[in-house]
């Protein structure tokens, strides 16, 4: 197979951007993706089998068959999880990765989110750290992501965000009824509500039409292609250059290294299950936090007996997602107008600055309101079955609002990905093993956030409210997974440099959520994209200086 300049493992949020940036700069690129390429026509609007509600399986990969993972409970017992089960911590396996079917909230982290340790100090038992880059370093690349991917929204209602040079490229969608109910209530509480940023066309943009406002959004591919992910923005641009080849249903087994300790390419199983080698001047790992760590750990050799980039046992540590908490309010009037995409209003008043709490998070009204989601969200005390349950469904389905938010997690070195010593996938590769838990201070912050959500709902007129603040006894990762290949300056406490290059090997990069030092109190997709643009920019500059060419 022809040697290329760069092979990229994973065509998700980050991998798609890296492919585009390198291909446009003239590098030859092979983009490998373990899943399939779905299009708008694959939107089945199936409420029991999508990427968020997976009762009958994952719509956009991986399949339950042959793709197990293992998780370890607090007693130390290991359990196998199917890809459609919560403990699997799935994101997606397809072209576009999570961005094909995400809710598409497109947040910038705040300046403080990059300096969490300096701002708060590290709580006991945590691995809280500052990023080696600042908000200002990332700002031009946030802007680039907002314009190239296509973001709608309006920050003008809130002072709680970092400085920005340009407004968002698209206005927000008109408010839905939940927005109209929640907005004045937030103002009465002295808060600053606004139209949250979304990777979704509110007007024609990038050659595609606007959102048609259905309520089947988060977890689904958009049937009118108005939701913007890497699969309908940067990846087509990469392919149009003629410099990038996308190969789907290709599972990378390992990164190959030479006797000098540099990467020479990857070995992968193609769609027919045949083992192939793709040689390249540089290797970019963009497989999402769990799978990126797994690939590095599975790439063992004489020079790298513990896997690539893992000299100091850092690969796979600091796994984090978000701890979601909030509240549901029940109203004596209709709050539901069936106007999508659902989430429409947010506040960032509580991301930082609460005495005694090391952070916080954004709060917003929740996307999902299909009948299947309501069956376990009825008022406390409602029977879980029988006529009472049926009548409560009828009474509350259109008269309730959920406010939730992603509490920024306090990372812990013990929350981690390792390789399971026993379980293998259908290619015979050791699978991801999750162990550890969420740092207890994260739960404390989450409880306060739930109280705040409840207060907002009461002010909006809810006649009953109920907080939603669980304390799961396993790692938090899922669709917001991050942290397993931390970015830093010190090789003993991080995996990659501020430019996302392995400390150990100068031609291997990890570019995805894995490098996040902390994960903000926000959905991470736009930050993953901005980091990918920034790392690509450095990579292209170095390439032009003829680095990496052997």
């Amino acid at each position, binding site marked *: 197979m022809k040697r290329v300049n760069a092979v990229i493992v994973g065509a998700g949020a980050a991998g798609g951007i890296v492919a585009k940036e390198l291909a446009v700069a003239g590098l030859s690129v092979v983009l490998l993706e373990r899943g399939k390429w779905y299009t708008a026509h694959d939107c*089945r609007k199936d409420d029991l089998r999508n990427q968020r509600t997976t*009762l009958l399986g994952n719509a956009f990969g991986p399949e339950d068959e042959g793709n197990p993972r293992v998780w370890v409970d607090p007693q130390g017992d290991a359990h196998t999880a199917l890809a459609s089960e919560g403990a699997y911590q799935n994101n997606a396996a397809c072209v576009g990765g999570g961005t094909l079917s995400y809710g598409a909230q497109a947040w910038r982290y705040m300046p403080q989110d990059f300096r969490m340790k300096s701002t708060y100090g590290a709580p006991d038992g945590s691995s809280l750290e500052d990023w080696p880059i600042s908000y200002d370093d990332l700002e031009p690349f946030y802007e680039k992501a907002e314009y190239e991917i296509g973001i709608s929204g309006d920050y003008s209602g809130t002072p709680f965000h970092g400085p920005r040079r340009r407004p968002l490229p698209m206005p927000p969608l008109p408010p839905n009824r939940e927005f109209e109910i929640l907005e004045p209530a937030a103002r009465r509480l002295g808060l600053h509500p606004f139209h949250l940023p979304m990777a979704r066309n509110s007007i024609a943009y990038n050659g595609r039409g606007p959102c048609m406002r259905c309520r089947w959004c988060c977890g689904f591919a958009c049937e009118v292609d108005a939701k913007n992910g890497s699969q309908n923005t940067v990846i087509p641009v990469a392919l149009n250059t003629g410099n990038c080849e996308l190969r789907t249903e290709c599972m990378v087994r390992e990164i190959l290294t030479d006797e000098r300790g540099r990467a020479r390419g990857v070995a992968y199983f193609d769609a027919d299950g045949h083992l192939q080698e793709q040689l390249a001047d540089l290797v970019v790992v963009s497989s999402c936090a769990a799978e990126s760590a797994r690939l590095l750990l599975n790439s063992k050799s004489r020079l790298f007996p513990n896997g690539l980039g893992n000299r100091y046992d850092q690969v796979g540590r600091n796994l984090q997602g978000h701890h979601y908490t909030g509240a549901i309010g029940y109203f004596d009037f209709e709050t539901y107008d069936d106007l999508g995409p659902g989430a429409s209003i947010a506040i960032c008043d509580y991301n930082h600055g609460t005495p005694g709490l090391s952070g916080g998070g954004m709060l917003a009204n929740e996307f999902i309101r299909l*009948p*299947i989601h309501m069956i376990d969200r009825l008022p406390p005390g409602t029977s879980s*079955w*029988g006529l009472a*349950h*049926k009548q409560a469904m009828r009474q509350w389905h*259109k008269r309730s609002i959920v406010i939730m938010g992603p509490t920024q997690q306090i990372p812990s070195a013990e929350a981690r990905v390792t390789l399971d010593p026993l379980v293998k996938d259908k290619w015979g590769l050791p699978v991801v093993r999750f162990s550890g838990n969420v740092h207890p201070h994260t739960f404390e912050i989450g409880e306060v956030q739930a109280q705040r959500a409840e207060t907002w709902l009461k002010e909006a007129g809810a006649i009953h409210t109920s907080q939603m603040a669980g304390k799961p006894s396993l790692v938090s990762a899922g669709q917001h997974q991050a942290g397993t290949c931390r970015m830093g300056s010190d090789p003993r406490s991080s995996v990659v440099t501020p430019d996302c290059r392995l400390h150990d090997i100068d031609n291997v990069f990890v570019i995805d959520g894995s490098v996040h030092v902390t994960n903000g109190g926000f959905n991470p997709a736009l930050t993953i994209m901005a980091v990918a643009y920034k790392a690509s920019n450095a990579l292209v500059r170095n390439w032009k200086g003829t680095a990496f060419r052997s």
Partner: protein
Amino acid sequence: MGKSSVWEFLSDEQARTLAVVCDEIVPADDFPSASQAGVLDYIDRQLARSYRRHRAAYTDGLLHVDEMSRIRFGQPFAALASDHRFEIVSALEQYDKPFFNLVRNHTLEGYYGSPRHGGNRDAVSWRMLGLAEPPIRGRSQYDLTNGSPS
């Protein structure tokens, strides 16, 4: 036994018992009960597909329901009077929580989930909740044959 059953996985006897359990979970009022809305089709179809892993739980669980019924009332479950059925399902909830939860969740999935899977016949539960069917707004503005606005 002749293989004339309409079911893919369930036996006719299992289906009779299951229908009664499902109808305790979603009884009829001015809208149909679980079995009237096709929930048995949903569960049976999934036991032949995505829920193959739950087959043993159903086989054992439904036997257990009949056994509880015979011990308490001397009759198979499907033959019981309505208040006795309620009593048995309540006992199931108390003494066989894993199976109860499985049937309860699958019944509600079948009743409130997409009609494409065999339950929620004619989108009856969505209409009950006052939702449009299909529950999509603005769709008529689009020519979906080529995925772009018409």
